[in-house]
Structures are given as structure tokens and as C-alpha cells.
């Protein structure tokens, strides 16, 4: 099950999906030491984004979220990839800066996110021509 997407930051990753109902501002929204959500007003407060394929409708909030994304990618407490319903310039910048500085990719792609649920295993691949694929890996499928 593969859906077509647009790539905004390059790379490929495969991990478990964490689907947030609402957009998350990384600045003030996550603890950079742990990657866990600390925004008390967010419905998924307490959940950790570290190592997941983070799926959310859109980014939100402060422009300092670019720096926070770059910082959590550097520390290894950030998501493995981000799938958004709508393009987000702030997160895109954070991922590109992290890739350039540290050589660690956190691909960011945009596609319809209906049907993506927490716990699914997802493979996100951003191609050089700005297209991307988001694939749901079925249990037992060869990886």
C-alpha cells in the first residue's frame, strides 16, 4: 500500500507511525532531551516522537521550531521522518539544516494522511525529483 507524496526534505526512513490529531509546535512543545511532548494543551502530551514516523495534519506555532527540529535530529531524539497533510516551511528548514550540518536525514513529505494510524509501520522515501512515497509495510513483509 503505497501513496504518492511530495518531498520537502530528502532521505528515506522506516519506522512506526505516530499520528497526532493536532499540529505540534516543536518549540515549547517537546523536550529536546527525550523527544517527548510537553505541551500541556496538546492531546498527545506525554507521547514521544523520538524515532517515529511523525504524522500530523500540519506544523504549528513558533518559527523557532526550525532550530528545535535541527537540535533533536542532532541529539537523536527527533522523529525518523515527518509526514504532513500540508507543507510546512518551518519544519522543512529545520530538517534541511540538520541534514546539511550533521548528515542525518529526517525526510519531510506531504500527502493525504487519512487512513494512517499510530502503530502502522511506514516507509517514507523522498526522491531527488521532489516526488516521494509513503508505504504501509504489512506484517511479515520482507523489508
Amino acid at each position: 500500500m503505497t501513496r504518492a507524496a511530495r518531498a520537502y526534505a530528502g532521505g528515506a526512513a522506516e519506522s512506526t507511525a505516530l499520528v497526532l490529531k493536532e499540529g505540534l509546535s516543536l518549540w515549547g512543545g517537546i523536550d529536546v532531551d527525550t523527544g517527548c511532548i510537553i505541551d500541556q494543551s496538546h492531546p498527545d502530551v506525554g507521547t514521544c516522537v523520538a524515532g517515529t514516523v511523525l504524522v500530523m495534519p500540519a506544523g504549528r506555532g513558533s518559527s523557532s521550531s526550525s532550530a528545535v527540529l535541527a537540535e533533536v535530529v542532532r541529539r537523536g531524539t527527533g522523529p525518523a521522518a515527518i509526514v504532513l497533510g500540508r507543507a510546512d516551511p518551518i519544519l522543512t528548514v529545520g530538517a534541511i539544516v540538520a541534514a546539511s550540518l550533521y548528515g542525518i536525514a529526517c525526510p519531510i513529505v506531504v500527502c493525504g494522511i487519512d487512513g494512517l494510524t499510530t502503530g502502522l509501520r511506514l516507509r517514507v522515501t523522498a526522491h531527488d525529483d521532489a516526488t516521494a512515497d509513503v508505504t504501509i509495510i504489512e506484517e511479515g513483509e520482507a523489508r
Partner: protein
Amino acid sequence: MSAAEPGIELTAFDQALLRGDQGEGASFAMRILVAFARALGAPGLLDISGAHIDGCLYHGQASLDFVERLVAGGGRVRVPTTLNVGAVDLIHPELVRLREPERSPAQRLMTAHQALGCEPSFTCAPYQTRFRPTFGQQIAWGESNAIVFANSVIGARTNRYGDFIDLCCAMTGRAPAWGLHLDEPRRGEVLFRLSGSATTAYAGDTLFTAVGLIIGWQAGDRVPVIDGLPTPATEDPLKALGAAAATTGSVGLFHAVGITPEAPTLEAALRGQPPVATIEITADDVREALRHLTTVSEGTPITAVCLGTPHFSRAEWDRLIALLATAGQPRVPIYVNTGRATLEVLETDGRLPQLDVPLIVVTDTCTYLTPILERLDGAVMTNSGKWAYYAPGNIGVQVAFGSLDDCVASAVAGRVVRIAG
């Protein structure tokens, strides 16, 4: 890389920068700028002739690595570029009680920006310096209060830029041809009508701050137009209004009918179209908004007064010095954040040494961002909506908001005092 940027048109200059013709630093900055512009959906880039960088406040190692990468790549800013506040007062270093391991990288971040050719202005009010832009000038500014001031009060043109991107614009002299750089997105959309009751009941600074809070809460991402605002004697009340609006919301531009340059009339502010919504602001709304800025009751003892958020202007210094001359001896210290350039003028004029009061001048940073205040155990009085909003969370103080007159009277009384009217 350019082949992989569908949907965005790049000039020969843009492509040359991307290729690295102007060095690795410029190429790195252009790669990030193009990706950002693409995510916005901008059709291309346009020239800018000034920038203001909000990257001097340390958020972590990545902030420093980014700037040092540009320095290592031989980067230089291509347009006159000012710097926002950092976490350290480089002129009065003893004032900031920031300890290691945070202090060194915070200070390095400030000096690394200077290595790129940025001006060491270290102020959140670059519009008070000789780098103030002019009407219609295309610029790329960070710092929310500076952005709203430049767009609204001056009529210069910038989007709300932030971490990394403001510097990428400065390093390339380019910005996405999108948003508030263009004509149509500057059209006023939400009309706020100030009732006579509000302007009668509240005068001066506090009215402007309250209106700022309200439009920030209610305008969303639409451009607000304010009708019925009294014409202020200086631009400082508009500074307070914009700073408050950018604190409670994401306002990057407001129009005040008969006051700001793109709003000579209501029709001009709305560009001849009807508003998408009209919201009345009454005296009750103003009172309710201001209630959010005070966590203690009248008469509560205070440990300090904090002024100058955004940085105190020369006109504000004139008012303060005049007030202090007749107010009596303050019992608590008065901290004033101000720009280096403003302080230089005060010192040249020889006006500060004449004051025999506990006045602590802070430059390069701000009292709500970094450990400066001697005492955090009591309430602090401020005339800044932005300070009152952020300080309880940032530095853990109780806070009371009032006009500049209220603040001076409270400093003398040693407790929260509000002068009627």
C-alpha cells in the same frame, strides 16, 4: 539541486549562488532558502535591501553549528544586517548571571554573527537605529515586534521570518516572492472598531497595549485594521501595540486608520473591499484584556520595575527622566532595556549620571530572557504587555502591568500603585 526544485523559478544569480560561485556559505544559505520558498509555494525570489537576524538567542548546539558553518564557508551578508538581542549583555557582562555551560556558547553565538558582517546592534528595536528601513523597502526581518513595526508603522515589507531563514535571506540578498512582500496580502481583512467608551476610559500606553492583545487573539492569520485609535504623540504606543499583537497572536502587519502609512482612510486599508469580519472593542474588552497581564492585586509589594520591552526609545527615556526628576526616591531598582545606539546618545548627552536613583541600564538583551533581576521572589511591575505576558513563564516572577507613570509611582511607593486615568 536546482533541477529538483520544481515549481519555483530561479534567476541566473540564484542558480550561481546555489552552484557555489560565491562560496560554500552562500550556497548553503541559498539551498535552505530555496527549500523554504518551495514549501511556502512561492513562485520565485525577490531582492531585499536589509535584514534583521533573530538568531542570537541560544536554543541549543544546532543554532551555533549553523552560524559557524556559514562562517567556515566564507559567508558574508550581502545586505546591511542588524542583530537582535542575545542572552548576554556584552557591554555590561556582570549584569547577566547566566552560568556555564550555557554562557560560553550563548556569547559565541552573538560574536559568530558579527564574523558574517552583521552589525552588532543587539536590539529588538532596529527601527530605532540608523538601519531603520523606509516606506516600501523590501527587507527580511526576524523578531516578532520588529516585523510588525516595520510593516505597519513604517510600511516596509517583510514576512515573519525566523530561525535560520532570516540569515539565509541576508546571506543571499533574496527572499521568497510571497506574502507581505506583495501588494494583495497586505490588504486589511478584519476590522476592529474602537468604541468611544474604550478611548475615554483608557488613555495612553495601556489602551494601545490592550488593543494589541485583542487583535492578536482575534485576527488569526488575517491582517487587522483598527479604526478609532487616537493618534499617538510618538511612535512608541504603536510599538507597544504591535509587540502585544505579536505576543498573543501571529500578527505581522496591522493598519491603524489615519495613523499608519498604508491606511490614510478605512477604504485604503481595506483596498476597497468589505472586511471579512468586524469586531467592536469596548471599554470592558480593554479592561478584560489588561486583566491578563497582572497576577497580583493593587498594593502588593514589588521588588523591581522593568521597562523597555521592546527596547526603550529616546522619547521614552525623555519621559522617564522627566518623571524621575519629580517623583521622589524609588525604593526598588528600575531596570531599563535599551539599544546600544540609544544608550550612546544618552551618555553623549550626559543625562544619565545626573540621576541619583537605582536605575539599571541593560543593553544587548532583555530582562525577561536571561537571569538579570536580583530578586525573583516578589512581584515586578512593567509597562510592557510583552514582558508581562512572558516573564512569569520565563523567569518565574509575579507581575503587574501599568502605564509608565504607574511604574514610576510604584517604584517610589515600593508597591503596586495605579494613578487614575
